[in-house]
């Protein structure tokens, strides 16, 4: 296999970039939609190649235990989302919400965003990672505003302002990290390379690390959507095109969380820093409980699930904050499962919103009578995201709660409280949408269930059986996370 012409890590960067260029030129939207799928497929394959041949770590790029599966997950969800968007976006043209020009822009941006995310994941350089994350953010901002309706523009504007403040804070944190590393490692690039940082983390100045982590947590936490930095997230999810909502919830949040994780590992490697755990636990619980309560008054279906994303980010942050092999394992599992499940939910929500011609929950009743397939898809998705077996989320929640309760009962009780509140809200809304007498449009749907099925199958199987390589990967990463 060493006969591979080019390092796969470059492939997963170049393919989307080239794809973006092509798509920007291609006028006909049908072809561009297909090309989009093709390009995503290619980058997915090249991501799979990473398993075959683990590339050597460079000064800028690296593939290690932590990011490899994120890359694969990223490209996979991008691939399925591109399929979904192919079946979704045509309808947007028919309804005239988008013009071909914007569609071209949309596809180009889609790949460009993928490039940004992949880069952020494989970057070996904190500066480079920062750039990449911001790149992804800015492209998503443009995507969110693409409908150019009053609401869309405002959502994008909100996202932009809050996001760029986040950018600034993250950058300051990055600079601080460099300042910490520079006396130990010496000036220049090495002082920003992950590999070097981890090697020398033990001898860094702890208090400066703490300060840096505060800024990085707030900066990247804004992307993660942790309360109180979450304000952009619900509107961005609600007003952008649904594929973008899926990508936001499924990928961008993960990428930002990945950045936070990296820095947490850095702090974990230095024994004298105060544990970042309390910060993560506090923000996590806050996000969980706040989002759970916010779910009750939602009238817009996409905003509803956006808040549920905040809730789950809270759970994940909590898990990593607790630390320990079990909780970290659960956190990683939850990240994976959540991105799969949530994007799947957005797939079905997108089609539902299209057939109903609205996102208002009040206008979509008795779906299981008019559109049984969509309705049950939504039910399965919600059941999975609410953490019922056999969904992988049940396993992660099981591990988090049970392992927490033995160590910090009060925290576990608070966690359970938040989860219960959230379940209550979700099923309250679900009952209104799926059951009862039909309301609103009853137009037939031309949805493609392939992406949805793919995601849900993985999630449901993961609840019963996780293949050993994945397990060992999770466990080794969990150990690093400390």
């Amino acid at each position: 296999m060493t006969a591979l012409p080019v390092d796969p890590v470059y492939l997963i960067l170049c393919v989307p970039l080239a794809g973006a260029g092509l798509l920007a030129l291609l006028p006909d939207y049908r072809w561009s939609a297909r090309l989009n799928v093709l390009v995503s497929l290619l980058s997915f394959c090249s991501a799979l190649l990473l398993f075959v041949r683990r590339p050597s770590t460079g000064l800028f790029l690296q593939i290690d235990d932590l990011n490899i599966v994120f890359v694969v997950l990223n490209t996979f969800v991008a691939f399925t989302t591109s399929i979904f968007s192919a079946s979704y976006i045509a309808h947007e043209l028919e309804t005239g919400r988008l013009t071909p020009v914007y569609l071209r822009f949309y596809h180009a941006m889609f790949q460009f965003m993928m490039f940004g995310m992949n880069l952020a994941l494989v970057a070996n350089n904190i500066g480079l990672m920062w750039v990449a994350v911001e790149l992804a953010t800015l492209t998503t901002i443009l995507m969110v505003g693409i409908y150019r309706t009053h609401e869309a523009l405002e959502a994008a504007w909100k996202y932009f302002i809050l996001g760029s403040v986040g950018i600034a804070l993250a950058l300051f944190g990055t600079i601080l990290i460099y300042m910490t590393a520079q006396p130990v490692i010496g000036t220049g690039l090495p002082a920003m390379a992950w590999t070097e940082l981890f090697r020398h983390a033990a001898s860094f100045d702890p208090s400066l690390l703490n300060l840096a982590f505060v800024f990085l947590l707030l900066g990247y936490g804004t992307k993660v959507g942790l309360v109180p930095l979450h304000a952009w997230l619900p509107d961005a999810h609600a007003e952008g095109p649904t594929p973008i909502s899926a990508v936001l919830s499924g990928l961008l949040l993960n990428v930002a969380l990945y950045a936070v994780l990296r820095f947490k590992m850095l702090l974990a490697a230095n024994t004298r820093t105060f544990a970042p755990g309390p910060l993560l636990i506090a923000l996590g619980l806050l996000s969980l409980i706040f989002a759970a309560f916010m779910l009750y008054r939602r009238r817009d279906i996409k905003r509803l699930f956006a808040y549920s994303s905040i809730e789950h980010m809270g759970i994940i942050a909590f898990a990593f904050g607790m630390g320990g092999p079990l909780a970290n394992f659960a956190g990683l599992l939850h990240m994976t499962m959540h991105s799969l499940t949530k994007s799947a939910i957005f797939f079905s929500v997108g089609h539902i919103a299209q057939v109903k011609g609205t996102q208002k929950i009040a206008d979509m009743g008795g779906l299981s009578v008019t559109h049984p397939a969509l309705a049950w898809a939504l039910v399965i998705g919600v059941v999975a995201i609410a953490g019922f077996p056999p969904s992988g989320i049940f396993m992660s929640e099981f591990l988090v709660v049970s392992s927490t309760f033995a160590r910090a009962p009060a925290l576990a009780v608070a966690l359970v409280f938040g989860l219960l509140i959230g379940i209550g809200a979700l099923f309250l809304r679900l009952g209104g949408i799926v059951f009862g007498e039909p309301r609103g449009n009853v137009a037939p749907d031309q949805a493609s269930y392939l992406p949805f099925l793919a995601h849900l199958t993985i999630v449901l199987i993961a609840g019963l059986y996780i293949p050993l390589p994945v397990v060992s990967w999770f466990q080794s990463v969990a150990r690093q996370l400390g």
Partner: protein
Amino acid sequence: MHSFSFDVAHLLAGSLVLVSFVMLYQDRMYALINTFALHAVLLALSVAWQAFVQDAPHLYVTAVIALIFKATVIPAALRRIVERLKIHREIETVVGIGLTMLAGIALVALSTVVMLKVTAAADPLAREDLAFALSIVLLGLLMMVSRRNAVGQVIGFMSLENGLVLAAAGAKGMPLVVEISVAFSVLIAFIVIGIFLFRIRERFDSVDIGALDSFRGDRG
């Protein structure tokens, strides 16, 4: 030499903080823009000084970028926007100027405490610079928070960026990557803001965020 270079850096950074305070104080549009230009100029100077001290030529680039871009282009653009959009000339603040100033002083105190406590080991130059940079960042944030007017907030944001640049310049031997990226991000930021202002101009008559917030999402 060292002590002298230290004093100059100290002076420049300190005066940056001072100008941030002046910006906090300003409540007229044009005056605010001019003050921001001054802020950028000072930033350019201190970055240049850092370049000289660390004899890191690439920092001069940053200085030049700051001088041209932030000190001249952007203020000009802002003035034109203000004229084009007929934004009324005084900026309404959330709380009284006096209170804002007091808050600013508290922030500066906080940042110095944090920094001085933190980097007891690091060299004083970087440390002082960081302290000032942090306080500039915080002041910029305070400005964004305390101004009801879009232009005011944009300026607050950019003064925040200035703080970042100062910090980056203070970090000895930090690769060029970072400065470029900073300028880059500021550029992108401003372009996108411009696009948005333009689009928004198409739709509403003001860039006042208050009007933007007329939509609060998820009503009914």
